């Protein structure tokens, strides 16, 4: 449908955004790229009385890669991540995940902050945030606070953000150069929402055993989820055909997806196992040269 009626304002600072959110509690929504919000409004699933456009908050448009980690301003577009040379080595898992977001035209407008605030359980960015243990910096009437990714997502399209809070940036931990990683997603058509997606990384210790294993899944529950049983099956182990198989089975068993129009629960459970198996095989075979090439 055509959009419902609303007021529109484009303030000059984050403080002004928060003041506006606080003055119209529950009635106002922030808009950046609008790639999730506008379709939601076109379907009349959301009818905010006021849209607050972030277009003048240039300071939210930044990518910083430092030894301490990666910082993405909330207005960073998927296109900016795709174009970033620094992120090839700074965070190759993020870069790989993002090319699966929708289509090129959407990636030219959609933003990191928007995806995190929208909290679709099948989206790539929430999955990456949870898998990597990201922290999200938000600003509200009571000042700034840091929210751990696992605490941000509370349900499908639901976050723990207060109604007067604005996401400023997301912080990802530093990425070691020889980390093994992979991202695998399945959708029936390129660009559709993932039926399921898996992000995985691990490091190798001096005995060549896996450590710091982190496995996250998208689309197989009401929130992105860490597959802790699968992580346990690999931590401290040699990564080989048997341990990969064990991890994949643990992953299938741990997820509790719903059945919907696109796939049954049983299909999604099986899909998660297969995706993890393929992801681990890719991570295993990713040699050091690949890591540097990104």
């Amino acid at each position, binding site marked *: *449908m*055509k*959009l*419902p*009626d*609303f*007021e*529109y304002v*484009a303030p000059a600072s984050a403080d002004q955004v928060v003041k506006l959110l606080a003055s119209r509690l529950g009635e106002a929504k922030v*808009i950046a790229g*609008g*790639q999730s919000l*506008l*379709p939601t409004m*076109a*379907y009349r699933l959301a009818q905010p009385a006021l*849209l607050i*456009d972030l*277009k003048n908050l240039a300071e939210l448009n930044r990518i910083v890669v430092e030894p301490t980690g990666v910082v993405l301003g909330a207005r960073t577009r998927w*296109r900016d991540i795709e174009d970033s040379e620094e992120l090839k080595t700074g965070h190759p898992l993020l870069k790989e995940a993002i090319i699966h977001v*929708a*289509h*090129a*035209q*959407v990636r*030219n*407008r959609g933003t990191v902050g928007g995806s995190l605030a929208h909290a679709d359980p099948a989206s790539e960015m929430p999955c990456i945030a949870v898998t990597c243990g990201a922290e999200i910096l938000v600003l509200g009437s009571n000042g700034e606070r840091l929210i751990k990714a696992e605490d941000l997502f509370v349900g499908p399209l639901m976050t723990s953000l207060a109604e007067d809070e604005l996401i400023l940036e997301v912080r990802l931990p530093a990425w070691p150069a020889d980390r093994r990683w992979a991202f695998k997603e399945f959708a029936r058509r*390129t*660009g559709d929402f993932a039926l399921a997606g898996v992000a995985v990384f691990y490091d190798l210790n001096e005995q060549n055993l896996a450590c710091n294993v982190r496995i996250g899944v998208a689309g197989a529950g009401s929130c992105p989820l860490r597959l802790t049983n699968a992580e346990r099956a690999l931590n401290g182990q040699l990564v080989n055909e048997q341990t990969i198989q064990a991890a994949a089975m643990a992953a299938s068993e741990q997820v509790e997806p719903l059945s919907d129009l696109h796939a049954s629960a049983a299909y999604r459970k099986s899909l998660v196992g297969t995706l993890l198996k393929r992801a681990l095989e890719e991570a295993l075979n990713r040699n050091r040269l690949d890591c540097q090439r990104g």
Partner: protein
Amino acid sequence: MNIFFSLNGNNVEVDVPVRTTLADCLRHGLFKTGTHVACEHGVCGACTVIVDGDAVRSCLMLAVQAEGCEVTTVEGLTPEVGLSALQSAFHKHHALQCGFCTPGFLTTAHALLTDEPNASKDRIREVLSGNLCRCTGYINIIEAVYEARTAYAKFGQ
């Protein structure tokens, strides 16, 4: 709300309700009906226009968000005389039938080839995957865009 932006190289001013999408503003406010509206929720690509060099879905952008931007629609891709390289290639390769999706493909392809004149067929296919066509089966569209690359190749590269 009064909006000022550049449309196909000309400064324009238009007054539209804030809830108007860029697509509806272009079509009904500025009478540029080359941009087509089909799904109106961002999956088909028929409404694609170019904003500040990027191909975007004009049904997923508010007109007010185009304030101060450079917008190019399919009308802006047509030269004074004759056909552009993309248009000629589309004609030669029979890359349209009903033509409804065609403006979206032309703007997307133009933005792609401007940035990546050496785009491979796989890359073309990947970027054009955000545009749906019910008539042609896509192969002729890919061939046309691939052939048009030579016109975008930078001098000396």
